[in-house]
Structures are given as structure tokens and as C-alpha cells.
């Protein structure tokens, strides 16, 4: 087995154990409200991993990824809302979409492809820009897609939003898809392309000089990340059942970025641990916020958490290494097969 595959499998397995444990425990004992938190955690995991796939390897922040989440969510919504409801809320849809009534798997697949396609189009100009310029252009992407979602009444129902999406996402499907996302991100990170891209994060000019086509590598990562985001948006939509364009704007961007910053941008383990930390903090603070009657407290604490992490550990709680690398240093036998 090639080294990148062993490493990805080992890394995924190591993260799978606690994640499945969480799912099993939640399934057995959690109240319906807590179960919802757990499913949303697994959905968030997919969203965060999408950012990891691009920003983690390239080192370029994206504020625009939520746009792909929106693309995935609207795609899934249009394909799964029962035609009777669709006829009522979106009377002007093209007939193919108006009559479509797909199940979970095809809807998620098509949304994934839609996310990848939209990313492929936008990525052409974006990935050719310099790092800072690209980061700023992603803010433009975020706003442009928000404006389109908010005003394209015939397809998105504008600012009123859509409803009637069936709850197709279950704990099981969310767990399976997030594990797939972890594995895909790990494979990409350990692959030749991922390695070169990570080298370009440290020094794009040097990486280029050593034969890495930085623009193409960024483009590939961007599309992969668009696909994962499209998938994440699709399962998110089929769990939350109704949404409007505001869900794909700055607050959502902040929530997802908070997770990746807290855990650490540069590793898949960081994305997972960040998602867990922020979800846990949010849930605890939400309870405090409700009982203390201070609106906004949760977001404030999450923002403070980001600042604290940036001050103390700018690379995030996990840092640049994966958990299996960190464990491997303590337990050498785990890494017997390392390159």
C-alpha cells in the first residue's frame, strides 16, 4: 500500500473511533434536542472540512465558501421538495425541475456536482490571483451569491426562502458522509498534489521553482472544496428543512471559520476538533444565554474563543500536524510504516 494511503487510512480511523462513539451514545441516550445538535455537528464537520481542503492546504482564506453551501442547499431543495409544494411556492420553475422528486442519495450527488461546477467556473479567475487578492475576491463571491439568492425569485423564492424539504438526512447518513469527507480530505492532503500545495503555502515562489504548478494545484483544491461544500449544503438543507438566503452570508461564514480557526486550519484533525470545540461551546453558551437572557452572548464567546486561540496558538488547538502524527511521536509503533 502506498504511504499516502496508509497514512490517510490510519488518520481517518483514528478520528472515526471517537466520532462513532459520539454517534452511538447520542443515538442511545440523547434527547431529540441533543440528537439534533449531534447531527448538526456532523453536518458542520462536512462544511468545515470543505474549507480545510482548500484553505488548509493552500493557506489562502476563503470567505466565499458559504456560497457553494447555498448552491448545494438550493440544488437539494429544488430536487427534493414534493412537486405539489414546489408548484405552490415556486410556480415559475422549468418543468424538469418542477416535476423532479428525488431521494437523498441522488439529490446529494447532484448537489455535490453543482458545488464543484460552480467552483470550477469561479475558480478560473480566482485561483490565478495573488494570495491576498484572492482572499479579498472571495468576499466579493460571498456578496454576489447572496444578492443572487436573495433576488432570483423564480428559483430561490428570494428573501422569503424555501420550505417543504423532506428530512432525508439522518444521524447515520450524516456520520457516513462526514467520515467520507474526512477520508477524502486526508487523501488529498497526503497526496502528491496536496504535498506540493502545502509547500506552496510556505513559499509559493520556491514551490513553483521546484516544479509545482501552484495555480493548477489551487484550482484542483478549490473544486474539491466546492464539491464538499455542495454536499454539505445538501445534507444541511435536508436536515433543517427550510431556509432563506441569510443563511448563506456572514453569520454562517463566521460560524464555519470559527471552527476551523479554533481547531487549526492546516490539518484535518484540526477541522474535526475545532468543529467539536465550537459546537460544544455554542451549546453550553446557548443555555447560559437563554437562562441569563443576554442575546448575542453565544456569538460573543465564540468570537472571544477565536481571539484567544489566535493570541495563544495561532495555528489552532491542533496545530499543523495531524493527530496520528502527534500520537506517532509518542507511540513509535503506530508509525512503523512511515516514509
Amino acid at each position, binding site marked *: 500500500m502506498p504511504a499516502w494511503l496508509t497514512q490517510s487510512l490510519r488518520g481517518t480511523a483514528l478520528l472515526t473511533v471517537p466520532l462513532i462513539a459520539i454517534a452511538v451514545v447520542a443515538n442511545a441516550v440523547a434527547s431529540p434536542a441533543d440528537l439534533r445538535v449531534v447531527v448538526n455537528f456532523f453536518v458542520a464537520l462536512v462544511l468545515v472540512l470543505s474549507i480545510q481542503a482548500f484553505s488548509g492546504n493552500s*493557506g489562502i*482564506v476563503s470567505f466565499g465558501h458559504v456560497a457553494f453551501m447555498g448552491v448545494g442547499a438550493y440544488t437539494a431543495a429544488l430536487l427534493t421538495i414534493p412537486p405539489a409544494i414546489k408548484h405552490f411556492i415556486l410556480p415559475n420553475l422549468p418543468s424538469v425541475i418542477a416535476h423532479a422528486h428525488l431521494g437523498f442519495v441522488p439529490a446529494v450527488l447532484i448537489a455535490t456536482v453543482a458545488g464543484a461546477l460552480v467552483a470550477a467556473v469561479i475558480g478560473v*479567475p*480566482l485561483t*490565478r*490571483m*495573488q*494570495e*491576498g*487578492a*484572492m*482572499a*479579498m*475576491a472571495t*468576499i*466579493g*463571491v460571498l*456578496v*454576489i451569491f447572496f*444578492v*443572487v439568492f*436573495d*433576488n432570483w425569485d423564480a428559483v430561490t423564492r428570494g428573501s422569503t426562502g424555501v420550505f417543504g424539504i423532506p428530512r432525508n438526512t439522518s444521524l447515520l447518513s450524516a456520520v457516513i458522509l462526514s467520515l467520507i469527507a474526512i477520508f477524502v480530505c486526508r487523501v488529498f492532503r497526503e497526496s502528491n498534489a496536496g504535498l506540493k500545495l502545502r509547500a506552496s503555502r510556505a513559499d509559493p515562489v520556491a514551490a513553483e521553482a521546484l516544479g509545482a504548478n501552484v495555480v493548477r494545484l489551487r484550482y484542483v483544491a478549490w473544486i474539491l472544496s466546492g464539491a464538499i461544500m455542495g454536499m454539505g449544503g445538501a445534507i444541511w438543507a435536508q436536515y433543517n428543512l427550510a431556509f432563506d438566503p441569510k443563511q448563506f452570508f*456572514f453569520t454562517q461564514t*463566521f460560524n464555519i*471559520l*470559527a471552527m476551523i*480557526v479554533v481547531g487549526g*486550519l492546516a490539518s484535518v484533525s484540526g477541522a474535526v476538533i475545532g468543529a467539536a470545540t465550537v459546537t460544544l461551546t455554542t451549546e453550553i453558551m446557548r443555555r447560559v444565554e437563554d437562562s441569563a437572557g*443576554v*442575546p*448575542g*452572548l453565544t*456569538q*460573543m464567546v*465564540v*468570537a*472571544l474563543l*477565536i*481571539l484567544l486561540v*489566535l*493570541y495563544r496558538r*495561532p495555528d489552532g488547538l491542533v496545530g499543523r500536524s495531524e493527530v496520528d502524527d502527534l500520537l506517532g511521536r509518542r507511540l513509535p509503533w503506530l508509525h512503523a510504516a512511515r516514509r
Partner: protein
Amino acid sequence: MTAGLMSSQEALQQLINALSLGSTYALLALGLAMVFSILGLVNFAHGELVTVAAYTIYLESEHGVPFPIEVISAVVAAAIAGVLMERIAFRPLRGASFVTLLFSSFAISVIIQNLFLALISPRQKGVAMPNVFNTAFRFGGSYSIGWLPVITTITCLLSLVVLTLFLRRSVQGLGMLAASQDFAVTRLMGISANRVIMAAFAISGALAGIAAVFILARRGTVEPTMGFNPVLKAFIASVIGGLGSLSGAVVGGFVLAFIEVTLDATLPIGAAPFRDAFALLIVIAILYFRPEGLLTRSEER
């Protein structure tokens, strides 16, 4: 309606609208550019300085404070908020990477928004402004122009003149101007880094405070998220002008305003909501073709 069919009254009105909008954007963009040029920080929380100023006016107007005092204290409050922001939040991150700084300013923006939400109200609150802002004056027989855009333009242009004099004539100002072009060398010339950075945040806050008065006069309400639109416009304007170029930011503000007013006048009715999307498409095109900005010569960087 197309530009060719516009009456001279409408053309004049559009021109003064573009000028007043542009001068507001210029103040906002200049503040953003000043901080960026010295620290390399795109301050997402710049819009919250506008919010601070607007809420200062709101709180004072609830207690019947006279308007001129409201304005002065709003500008001072925004300047202090800028300095505090730097002291508390950005100073510990001095020298951190672009990404870290971006994230931290994003977090600070969220904290300030939620502070207003928690301490005052998540909802919009109406603010009474002087009547003169709602009146128009006539001249030359048939021409009628609103006072608000005229006052906005004059005040913002005056602020720009005062700031330019300060930057060009005082030692502290020259130090800042030099720092905006090459901070490292400026420090070697014996200019105190902390003083320059503090002054940049204070000026950036004061400019945002002045802009806030007119933003508030136009919208008539305060709400915790009201800083978003201003920071977005400032961001677009400073990208047009070349991020980090002070004069570019000012010109970028006016260019953005003229683009917006033109799009408003020429876009078909159905496309009007897409105006901001068009403006940002232009920004992405600029970032792609001329990342150094439309207005800077390459040697200026």
C-alpha cells in the same frame, strides 16, 4: 431612463448624490487604507466604528443632548473606539500573518455587534436628526437640491483637506505618510511605531465617525449590524484605488459612488437589486487584472 434623456435638474441631483455618496465612501475607505498601509490589516471591524458613532448619537438624542455636541462626541467616541480596538485586540498580534489579522478583525467585528445587541437591542431604533437634513433649497428658479447631500459633500471634503494638511505639514503627519509607504524604514528613521499606529486608528475612527453622522442622517435608524454596508463599500473603494494607497482610497470612494449612481440610473428596473453584485464583479475584475488598483502607478507601491 438613460443618461441622455435626463433633464438638467435630474443630472444635477444625480451629480450631487454621487458627490455626497462618494465623499462618505472616501472617508471610510481612507480610514481602512490608513490602517492597512501601516499594519497590513484589512480591518473588518472598521464598520463597527461607524456603529459606535451612530449609537453615541442615538443614546445622546434619547437624553436631549444638542446636535452639535452629539456630533462631536460621536466622532470622539469612534476615534477612541479605534484606539481601544488596536490596544486591546490588535497589539498582541503585531506582526502576525495576514490571515491571522483578518480573522481577528472578523472576530472583533462580531464581538462589537453583539455587545450592542446585548446591551441595547437587537432591533432597529429610530434616531431624530435635525430637520435641515430633510429639507431642500431652491436656486436659479427651477433647481431644487436636498441639504443633506450638500452638507455631506462639504463636510467630508473639508475633513479630507484638514487631514491632508495634517499629513503634509506636521511632523507626526509626515511620519504617518511615510509609514504608510514603508513602515520598516520609517521606524528606522526614529518614528515611534506605537504612536504612528495609534494615530492611524484614531484618525481612521474619527473619519468613520464623521461618515457615520451622514450615514445615520440618511437611514434614520441604528442597529447592531449597521456597520456592514459601510465597511463593504470602504473595502470596494480601497480595492479600486489600490489597497494601501491613501490617495487611491479617496479617489476609489468617488469612483465607486459614480459607478453606483450610474448603475442606478441605467440598470433596468428588474436588475436594480443586483447593483451591489455588479459593483463586486467589477472589484473581482480589478483584483484579477490590476491587483495594485486602478489608480496607482506600479512604482508607487
